[in-house]
């Protein structure tokens, strides 16, 4: 186990493929390496292969092809119980016939840790998740959020270096979920554990992770820190999947200097930043975030292209205004404006000009 390997690539997937039926690949040529202490989220729609990757890492599924390494050691042939990976399950999987303390003591017992040390560790783990007084309860007597904390404590009590979490917050209500997101990241960073977190909730992925791997169709579409993922999506799937997005289709007219001119299908011209279009004449989907659309012409450069838009609907959402427009034949173009005292409230039926900074508009694959 070379120390250089553990530092830069504690967890590694190398050319991993997985097929259940021998006909279709659920995971296609997966390559991933995580440094120690990283919080990585696997994000993707259901059926994208993210959970399968997690299960292969945990040992409940075997890779059809390729190598999975932890700390430089291939774990393909190591049974799950010898991998020493902590895991939090979607439905918590707390043992209903044991008390909370017994649940936590279970991983220590099978490791043959003495009773006094065991009790001490269990208490410390319970305190860590602020559940110190609940040791004697049964899981069924706890609320969802409390069960979640216990499941977390149980995954951490034997001090694993790697913890896997399979949509652990899926069953909680919004407020509790947000609170637990914070708790989990805090613990992960405090304890310096390497965490692989699976979710289909993009907000969760963005707020918690050091890096996010966006899965679709058995592949990682993009692996980047949250801000990069949001601001510089590498393809139209990522742009669509992360956050809200306006999409217009067209053809590249001019390209060069990190800028391109796109002629929309309606004939209008717009400025964009080429991401994965290379040549004039390529079909493209351009994507603009609703909050980056400018309705105040003064803020744009004088030579910027603008589009005519008709206001269809104005929705008051408290902190922001959400306005739906008809732009270049699409009537699902949305813009978001901050609820500031000087902000105009657009009335349905009015015609306005909209534009944006070229770097905010990404010309992606069609």
């Amino acid at each position: 186990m070379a120390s250089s390997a553990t530092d830069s690539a504690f967890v590694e997937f190398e050319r991993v493929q997985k097929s259940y039926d021998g006909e279709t690949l659920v995971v296609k040529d997966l390559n991933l390496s995580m440094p120690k202490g990283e919080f990585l989220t696997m994000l993707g729609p259901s059926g994208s292969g993210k959970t399968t990757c997690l299960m292969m890492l945990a040992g409940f599924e075997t890779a059809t092809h390729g190598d999975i390494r932890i700390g430089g050691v291939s774990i393909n042939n190591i049974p799950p119980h010898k991998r020493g990976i902590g895991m939090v399950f979607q439905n918590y999987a707390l043992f209903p016939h044991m008390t909370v303390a017994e649940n936590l003591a279970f991983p220590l017992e099978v490791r043959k840790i003495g009773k006094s040390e065991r009790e001490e560790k269990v208490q410390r783990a319970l305190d860590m998740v602020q559940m110190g007084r609940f040791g004697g309860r049964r899981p069924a007597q706890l609320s969802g959020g409390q069960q979640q904390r216990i499941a977390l404590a149980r995954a951490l009590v034997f001090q694993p270096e790697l913890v896997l979490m399979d949509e652990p917050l899926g069953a909680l209500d919004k407020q509790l979920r947000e609170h637990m997101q914070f708790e989990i990241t805090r613990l992960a960073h405090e304890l310096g554990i390497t965490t692989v977190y699976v979710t289909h909730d993009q907000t969760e992925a963005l707020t918690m992770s050091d890096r996010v791997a966006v899965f679709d169709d058995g592949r990682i579409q993009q692996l980047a820190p949250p801000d990069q993922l949001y601001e510089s999506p590498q393809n139209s799937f990522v742009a669509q999947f992360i956050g809200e997005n306006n999409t217009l289709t067209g053809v590249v007219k001019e390209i060069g200097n990190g800028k391109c001119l796109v002629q929309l299908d309606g004939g209008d011209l717009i400025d964009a930043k080429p991401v994965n279009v290379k040549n004039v004449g390529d079909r493209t989907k351009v994507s603009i975030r609703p909050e980056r659309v400018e309705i105040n012409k003064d803020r744009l450069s004088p030579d910027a292209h603008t589009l005519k838009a008709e206001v269809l609907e104005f929705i008051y959402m408290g902190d922001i205004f959400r306005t739906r427009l008809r732009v270049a034949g699409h009537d699902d173009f949305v813009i978001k404006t901050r609820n500031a005292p000087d902000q105009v409230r657009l009335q349905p039926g009015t015609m306005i000009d909209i534009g944006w900074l070229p770097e905010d508009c990404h010309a992606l694959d069609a």
Partner: protein
Amino acid sequence: MTDATTDAGKLTTADGQSLKKSLHRALRRQKVRALMLIAPLLLFILLSFIAPIFDMLLRSVENDIVPDTIPRTIVALDDWDATSGETPGEEVFAAFYTDFAIAEEYKSHTRLGSRLNYELTGISSLFRSTGRKVGKFETESYTEQFTAADAAFADPAQWAAWMADDAVRAALPQTADAYDAWSKIVVDLNNDVPSEEDPADFVYTGLYNDLMAGASVASIPSVDVSGWEPVSLREQFIDANDGWADPAVWATIKTYGGDYTSGYFLNSVDMQLSGEGVTQRPEDERIYITLFVRTIILSIVITGSCILLGYPIAFLLANLPLRSANVLMILVLLPFWTSLLVRTSAWKVLLQNQGVINDILVWLHVIADDNRLELINNATGTIIAMTHILLPFMILPLYSVMKTISPSYVRAAKSMGANDWTAFWRVYFPNSVPGIGAGSILVFILSIGYYITPELVGGTKGVFISNRIAYHISSSLNWGLAAALGSILLILVLALYWLYDRIVGIDNVKLGG
């Protein structure tokens, strides 16, 4: 609260009626509807199931045949000391003569004999043989002497007139009692008119006894009976059958003279009620305790083997993909679609001495030809066949419970470092215990009352208490004992159920979901 307003602490609806009353009315329709829906089944069960069972169970303590058939004897026996070791006196026999003579007319003395025979062997034949002789007792001499003394005593119409007179009846209580019984016989059995028939000997005997006791009535002819040679009924009975001299017979009659008896229940647990109180039956008559114990032990063994065989199958079923699980499930259910009798008979073919299993074992040289295994007509046969028949009742609840155990439990255990066995034993198994509980209760209760299979493959060493109950119902016709045995079985099952509830908790029994 738009439709209900608070008025002086009481909720009322918008139009001022009590909210409770209004709700009650609204719900009543639903209740009536529900009742109507279950009414046919409820009635059917009440009439055809609950009521007969209750009636049957009552027979376990019912004993009115004794006081109904020989009421006078029971009263007369009150003064007799059963522990004295002596035959009762003349007055008991006199009462018994009247009772017996009446019973003989109705032929109910044989039924009484059978009833008492359950308590003391030999009474049945005693009653039967005496029944043939009681008409020829020498009490005839009283009749002859009365009719010789005065022709009025030979006149049926005169008798009817005397017996209609309250003063005569009050003066001659025994005569009136005997005459009433006799006239009832005449009306009931012969469809004749008492005023046209000669009274029977026991009526004259009653008259003799009354007159001997010093009764005198002006309206009937005065006869001096003191000079007549008395007929000792005690001797008459003992002459007819010397069994009547045995105090044990009378002790039995006295002991079982009540309307209700604990005799059947005592018999069910190999005890008996005799003159000396409750005692154990003689060694060679004790069979029921052995049978109960055997029934329970074999049921436990059957339940145990069902768990051993059913658990792995249910585990496999619960963990297979749905399609294969369904195929396997059909195989599990297949025996249900075959007649119980056919399955049991199949076991007869397989298990018998010259049967398939023995043949194969001999062919494989596992056993010698002259040393074939005794697999049938003993407890082994009962266990094998009943385990097979009751296995689905174990598998189904186990399966439905196992189906609800999330696979993530075992995964979680493994991720925490437990090997396959520890994960199973510490996590999976405890969660499947409710299924074992439900299956065990089902199999145990079914097997404890099983009849047909032990009957066919059990021989003598492998039969259950239910076979004995069936024997008493259909062969020995001792329904009281059968009812008592059945009641004990029922109480046993309820007690075990209660015990199970106390130890395991009935909430822990799951049939799935």
